[in-house]
């Protein structure tokens, strides 16, 4: 919250990520990637499987280093931002701790911040309520279904209140109804707190429904091929029926299809945005 509103939430400049560089199993995951996420902006990342979305989130989160290029978060280096806890992250795998109950898994980030015991418990129960798992507070992670585990992980990522949320396919294993509920919860939280959010998803409607901009990535080596602005205003029940919603969905879909075909026609589109 000490960040001035003017500096972008995320700023990637010429970021490359090459795994196993120089070895036979070298993989270029990100190639010369440039991206700016404005303060308070909701950006969705979309692209074929294995194109580098998770890698990009990990570079932003300073969980891995860019091979080349610079990454700034809230005007700081990625490392500083991590150290100052400028972001919260929901991982693609739930990564729950088997030795903690569901509730205590949610409490973990609060514990690390030194929040008192009863406050922690209260906050955790509130979040479990939100993801509709209050009944399972005392269970162990392996007693939960895949979707339930994912919801616990979401609750955990929301436990503290960082200005930036990085979410990697958080709703992937949820059924449509629950997913819509969670989407609306996320939008509510965002509205109330003014968080910036970078959100990876495979669902085009989800990307469009949630975000201000949809960033489309190409298959390996991961590059940004398209950025589609979405201006739907406040989301509500009717948004999904909105003409503009369908337009945006179609635009994203085409951008993605173009990707699969590949080619220069798409490249030029970036200029438009």
């Amino acid at each position, binding site marked *: 919250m000490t960040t001035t509103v003017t500096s972008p939430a995320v700023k990637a400049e010429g970021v490359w990520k090459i795994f196993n560089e120089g070895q036979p199993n070298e993989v270029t995951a990100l190639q010369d990637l440039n991206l700016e996420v404005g303060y308070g902006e909701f950006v969705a990342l979309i692209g074929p499987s294995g194109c580098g979305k998770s890698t990009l989130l*990990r570079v932003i989160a300073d969980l891995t280093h860019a091979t080349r290029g610079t990454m700034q978060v809230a005007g700081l280096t990625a490392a500083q931002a991590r150290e100052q806890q400028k972001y919260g992250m929901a*991982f693609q*795998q739930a*990564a729950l*701790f*088997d*030795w903690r109950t569901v509730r205590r898994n949610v409490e973990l980030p609060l514990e690390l911040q030194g929040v008192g015991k009863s406050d922690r418990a209260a906050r955790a129960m509130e979040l479990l309520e939100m993801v509709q798992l209050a009944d399972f507070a005392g269970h*162990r992670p*392996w007693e939960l279904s895949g979707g339930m585990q994912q919801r616990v992980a979401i609750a955990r990522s929301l436990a503290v209140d960082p200005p930036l949320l990085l979410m990697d396919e958080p709703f992937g294993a949820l059924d449509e109804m629950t997913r819509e509920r969670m989407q609306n919860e996320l939008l509510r939280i965002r509205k109330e707190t003014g968080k910036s959010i970078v959100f990876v998803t495979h669902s085009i409607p989800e990307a469009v429904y949630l975000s201000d901009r949809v960033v489309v990535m190409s298959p390996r080596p991961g590059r940004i091929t398209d950025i589609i602005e979405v201006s739907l205003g406040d989301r509500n029940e009717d948004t999904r029926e909105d003409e503009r919603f369908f337009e945006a969905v179609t635009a994203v879909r085409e951008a993605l299809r173009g990707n699969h075909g590949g080619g220069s026609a798409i490249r030029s589109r970036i200029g438009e945005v």
Partner: protein
Amino acid sequence: MGQRLRLIWPPVVVAAVFLALWQGIVVVNDIKPYLLPAPSLIFTSLFDNVSGVFDATVYTATTAFLGLMIGIVIGTLIALLASRFIVVNKLATPLAAGLAAVPIIALTPILNNMFDITSRTPRVLVTIIIVFFPIFVNVTRGLTQIQPAHLELMRSLNASAGKVARLVRIPNALPFFLTGMKVAAPLSVIAALVAEYFGGPQQGLGARIASSAANTAYGRAWAYVTAAIVVGLLFYLAVLLLERLVTPWTGRARSA
């Protein structure tokens, strides 16, 4: 109830079969007690000398327990340090391996010379050294063998190394630690016992076994051995109980 029975009867059955076989072989082949005493002889020797065996057992069990506890603490602490500081790790690992491979028999005379032979100290030290290694090796493994996803999570939460140790490494190491304990607990008994062969106060199991065996009183010697086995098993059982208490999550793989 049924659960508990399932826990108890297999060892009882195996023990009964084993002892019956032993007794049978001794009786049928007319094996003389100077070679191998029959279980019946061991048990009569035991009952003839219950209070003597008990006192010796208490003495040796105390040594073993002290050594086990201190060894666990030291082993765990150094493993923790080794997982935190690479220098400690690199230095301690070969040293620990060397120390562990020092045969107790070779170590005891030296410790007996360095410390007062008439005290319990050299024996406790021998036990500590023996206990230390399995604990250190297992805990070190448990502290470092962490799912990458878990470490990433902690990193994203900017958890300090200490917090990562407390919240991830230590719980993750618990099953490894207990595996080490399972090895260390019986070893502590044998270490405390063997350390007695070389001198010092003579009221423990080791001295009694040595003295009885030297006089070919194998029935008596094995009565003391039986006591040592019982102590070892009790120590082990305590570890099993501890395992159920502190790592309730580890049994799940078998539930399928």
